[in-house]
């Protein structure tokens, strides 16, 4: 268990370095530079050169990376090249919004996905086929499209929930809840589908395991087999897959934040992309990578808890 955690920590530093390094290296590879892109094709060479110098782009990319890294270690992720705002502080106000989507989204995906996948595998029959159909739709329909449909139905037509906007949890808990219900559901649909499929496959595998057959043959009831033995053992691969699902969910969150006009990291990064504001994108990258590391860390703990081989040795 301790080894597992140590291993995860050892992996997280290269992961952070990798993400930032890719971005810096790519920027250096591109012909022309950020200054040119910001000012557009019609800018005079002199103004481009001036902006380049001002942005520090005249240094080689690895030197700039070194500077950035030195700052990042101290929590300073540089400044936006568009408006000069401190990246770390812009991130601070927006991280809460994105976490308000990701944390409930991941929990909802896990709980509903496991329940659906388990029921589909164990029950079969009409319910099983209905669940199969729902998960197939959840796989096929893009989350942002479902989000729009939900806005039309629940916000515009029925007026039950707000169509856009965000209320901070600390200021207005009920408003916060109302503002995240639709986005979280839209974000979770693909996650629910993925978890349900994983669970279904894992449960079917475990149902045919020797020990299930043995325990069943010696009198253990179906009820106990399903809810104690099968669920417990099937949870191991499902929990492991949650890490990847969480990574995929980050992509969904960027799209969903745009639909609901939520002031989170996703909409910040989208605007930054349109503005060619690489330091800001990089800052978002650091926060999201930290989120992935945290999720993987929690998954490792759950994995160790579920798997006695890890726990005992």
């Amino acid at each position: 268990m301790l080894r597992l955690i140590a291993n995860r920590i050892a992996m997280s530093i290269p992961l952070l370095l990798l993400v930032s390094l890719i971005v810096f290296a790519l920027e250096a590879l591109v012909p022309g530079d950020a200054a040119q892109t910001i000012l557009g094709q019609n800018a005079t060479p002199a103004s481009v050169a001036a902006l380049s110098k001002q942005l520090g782009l005249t240094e080689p990319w690895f030197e700039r990376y070194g500077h950035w890294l030195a700052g990042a270690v101290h929590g300073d992720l540089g400044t936006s090249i568009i408006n000069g705002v401190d990246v770390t502080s812009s991130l601070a106000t927006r991280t809460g919004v994105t976490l308000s989507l990701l944390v409930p989204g991941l929990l909802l995906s896990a709980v509903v996905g496991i329940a659906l996948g388990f029921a589909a595998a164990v029950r079969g029959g009409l319910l099983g086929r209905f669940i199969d159909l729902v998960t197939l739709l959840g796989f096929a329909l893009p989350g942002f499209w479902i989000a729009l449909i939900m806005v039309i139905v629940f916000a515009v037509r029925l007026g039950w929930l707000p169509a856009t906007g965000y209320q901070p949890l600390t200021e207005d808990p009920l408003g916060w809840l109302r503002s995240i219900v639709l986005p979280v559901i839209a974000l979770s649909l693909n996650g629910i589908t993925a978890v349900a499929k994983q669970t279904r496959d894992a449960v079917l595998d475990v149902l045919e395991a020797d020990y299930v057959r043995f325990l069943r043959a010696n009198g253990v009831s179906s009820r106990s087999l399903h809810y104690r033995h099968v669920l417990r053992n099937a949870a191991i691969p499902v929990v492991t897959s949650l890490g990847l699902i969480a990574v995929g969910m980050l992509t969904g969150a960027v799209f969903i934040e745009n639909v609901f006009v939520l002031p989170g990291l996703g909409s910040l990064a989208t605007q930054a992309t349109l503005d060619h504001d690489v330091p800001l994108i990089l800052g978002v990258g650091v926060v999201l990578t930290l989120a992935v590391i945290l999720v993987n860390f929690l998954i490792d703990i759950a994995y160790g808890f579920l798997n006695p081989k890890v726990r005992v040795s």
Partner: protein
Amino acid sequence: MTAVARAGRAARRGVLPALVRSPRGAVTGGFLLLLLLACALAPVSAPADPLHQDLHHVLQLPTTGHWLGTDSLGRDVLSRLLYGGRSTLVGVAEGVAAQLLVAVPLGVTAGYLGGRFDRIVMRAADLVMSVPAIVILLAILSIFDRSITAAMITFGVLGGSGMLRMVRGTAMAVRRELYVSAAELLGLSRTQIVFRHILPRCRGTVIVQSSLFAAVSIGVQTGLTFIGLGPPPPAPTWGGMINESVLTVTEDPWLLAPAGVLIALTVLALGILGDVVRDVTAQSHTSSGGLLAKPVSRRAVPPRMLPGPDPVLLSLRDLAVSFRTPAGDAEMLTRVSFDLDSGQTLGLVGESGSGKSVTARTILRILDRNGTVTAGTVRFRGRDLLSAGQRELEELRGSRIALISQEPMTALDPSFRIGAQLREIVRRHGKLSRRDADRRVRELLATVELPDPEEIARRFPFQISGGMAQRVAIAAALAGSPELLVADEPTTALDVTVQADILALLRRLQRETGMAVLIVTHDWGVVADFCTHVAVMYAGEVVESAPVAEIFDRSAHPYTRALIATSPENATRRTPIRAIGGSVPPPGARPSGCRFRDRCPMAEEDCAEREIPMIGIRAGHRSRCIHTKALEAHG
């Protein structure tokens, strides 16, 4: 045949013909092909110019002129979809191509070479898998000025870990196979082995992963164009069209539908296509969520008259069992009949694939999901077990019929302590407090001659040896004092020295409890030592049944004789162990008439003419052979 071998064969036969033959494959493949052609030929296939505005006809619902209506600028929606599909499909193709270029060479090399290179590649793949792809995509789109091509290629590379892993796994499996080692010894170069043996086997995996990845990339490509990071308007993109429809959504929700539905259909088609390829290249019980798969049905068995008083303990009559496989139904058992009475020990003997274990499992109604009883009866004290309900079965299992199985190491749930599992079984058979149940568990563990029951109960299954695990399994089976113990090759997986101990234990327990034992084995030594009766199985039917002395002295079936003659116990020093030529024919390939005739030294023409019935030889001795006279004369 293993799944891998089957996959290999399918890969060699070609995935495409198998795909077209499956209805799901034909429909989804046809749809994707049609879409591809329609988009590629958009200048010809599209009814209008995608940029042509007609402000007199904005936001129209579908009409004969505009099959999918018009948008807020009066542009033809269908034409925009077809032109927009080009950038989506090209983007997906670029992503898939990038993924193939990275994942296949690396996966094959890592799996084939193994060692340090493999460790480094897998470590890197692990790392890349955790990279939040969206961040890199946004950075790319910013740096390369909204180039969807650059974004999709990057996405392909970042998403390659899954494919890499699968390809590596296949390459490793192929490398371990005998024919590849043989090819290496014959001097084939590594490159030749990779191209001739490894790559063809990876084909199925690669197609499955590619189509799933394509499905995911469509979501990402349309998402990116939806949030405005694709080609700038007025260029049509699927995501962009959905975005444009948002502004007019309250007046005209229809506009959301065409692009959304087309995206969903394309993703669905790719997802199902992947599932179909997986199904035709390897056996798997999960299809596209089973939406279009056939349901498992258990054909009703007509109830029969109950026999008279004090019926025989276990009686099987004309039992037939089928398994549903991707290649169609396979009849594993046909007309299996035998009796077993209290205190007797029946040995069920035969080569692998003859149906012994399926018979044992059918008695306890623990067949895998794809198995179905199609005919016959299994009576236990006169009660037809095949018509028993779930509840009745649960009460019967363990307390009247119990099981010990072939692989003791996998017979116990790896996630629970041995004591907890035994306690659960003990409490099923009698209302006991936790403490009394624990005491009973310790008693049982002591009964099966395990030293230090306390300590064993505290352990997890992976912390004990195979011999100990089989003793624990026997303890579990004894917990309900069953009248019949079904032992499915209880010693096959154990060391020779441990085998004898386990058999001695079983013999002692049988003597003490008087329970009947049905033991599945291919070890004649076990039969001679332990059994009172024998039923020999071949290709899904019983071919001979007799008391044990009769079988060894006066067997009336050539197959039984061949089995006994080839038994290792009958081998003498310096003479090679004999073997029966050929192998048990699988369900689809059984010959007509006598199923053994292809391998039988005494086969005559009349053996092929009709189904051979069981023929009475002496009291309690029956054989499925029409040449028993010749056989007895033979000696």
